[in-house]
């Protein structure tokens, strides 16, 4: 079974103020897709991730794809197939940049 791992050389942090604003917006039912809540930095490349991206990133701790989707599904109002597709696309992008690795 393929597991997913954050590259330990990536430096990252969540931005507390942005996260608080997003959580307030979520409570109001507002869109938060465009707001960054974390920043990742490695090898001269900086990424800013929104709330969902950050939650996925935090789950790249050796879990499988199924494990990540199972963890996220109760948190987001979305069909499992759609979520799975979005997560896979995002992980592939992170892998291409060297921010995560897949392991068997």
């Amino acid at each position, binding site marked *: 079974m393929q597991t997913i791992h954050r590259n330990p050389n990536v*430096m990252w*942090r969540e*931005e*507390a*103020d*942005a996260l608080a604003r997003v959580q307030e917006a979520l409570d109001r039912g507002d869109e938060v*897709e*465009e*707001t*960054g*809540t*974390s*920043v990742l*930095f490695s090898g*001269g*490349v*900086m*990424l*800013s*991730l*929104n709330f*969902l*991206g950050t939650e*996925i990133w935090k789950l790249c701790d050796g879990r499988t794809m199924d494990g990540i989707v199972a963890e996220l599904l109760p948190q987001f109002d979305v069909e499992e197939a759609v979520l799975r597709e*979005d997560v896979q696309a*995002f992980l592939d992008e992170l892998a291409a940049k060297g921010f995560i690795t897949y392991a068997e």
Partner: protein
Amino acid sequence: MQNEIVLEAPLTINWAINNSCNFACRHCYSRTDTHEEIPRDVLLACLEKVAKAGVFSVNFGGGEPLLHSGLLEIARHASGLGLRVSMNSNGWLIDRETARALRDAGFTKVGISIDSHISEIHDQFRGVAGSHGRAVAALGHLAEAGITTSISTVICRINHTAIDDLVIFAREQRAGQLNFHNFKCSGLGLSHKDELDLTPGEWQEFYRRALAAKEREKGLDISLDDPIIALLGARDAGSLVKGSVCGKLSLNIKANGDMTPCGFIPIVIGNIVRDDLKQVWRDSPVLEKMRNKKATGKCSGCSKYEDCLGGCSARALALTGDLNSPDPHCWA
């Protein structure tokens, strides 16, 4: 899932932990600074503030940081707090034993200043005979200790046409990165501006050739930290924001704890000993001005302004008195 973000703290801090130096460089920005230094215990506490704010990395400089008797302890403390630790040095004091000690203290990367592939030119510029040889030896010792090395070259009149030679030299020294730093008119750099700085046309020619070398050379990371290269339709891979990174991604701390937007902008916006880093980062009117520059003079109407944002604010300030002025190196 990637977005714009307002950072709540710098990603990296350039920290001049001392102003003592064993060299007499013609372009030194800190020689005229105070020699007042933060007491070691206070400095260690300040590092904890920095780590707590979420800063990723600290790059120690000076002065010559190896002349600070507490460097290893300070680096070890920073590293233990989870900060990525690096340093810029002239290399004079780095022998095999020191390189190993630096590695053990947590240094992952050390940049060595070398301004010419020709030893006599470097020695004359740095003011110390034999400095080129010691710098080259330092690169070897650091690599042997497993520390990533880079060569930092301040581009000015002594070396601006020697790009290819500098690239060959960097490859011979097995440096992973060659940093071409643009000359700043700060400190002694301002006093020696007429002797060392290039004309806008010469900067344009330098960057044309440096960008060609960067494109051509594989396996050697050539870094150009000058926002003005946007005029040539290029952005350095390391440039993560438009315009200068100073005050947007990075902050400078001086030996006495004063915080400035960068090492070349002598405007104090706070002090790390007494002030809250995140609050200064968020509320400083100087940083706000640097993050929201307005096109003035010839920048108005320039099609490249959106990417260049007026170039280097430090140079603009030094030569015009206003951070917002067009970069005096601009050839447009």
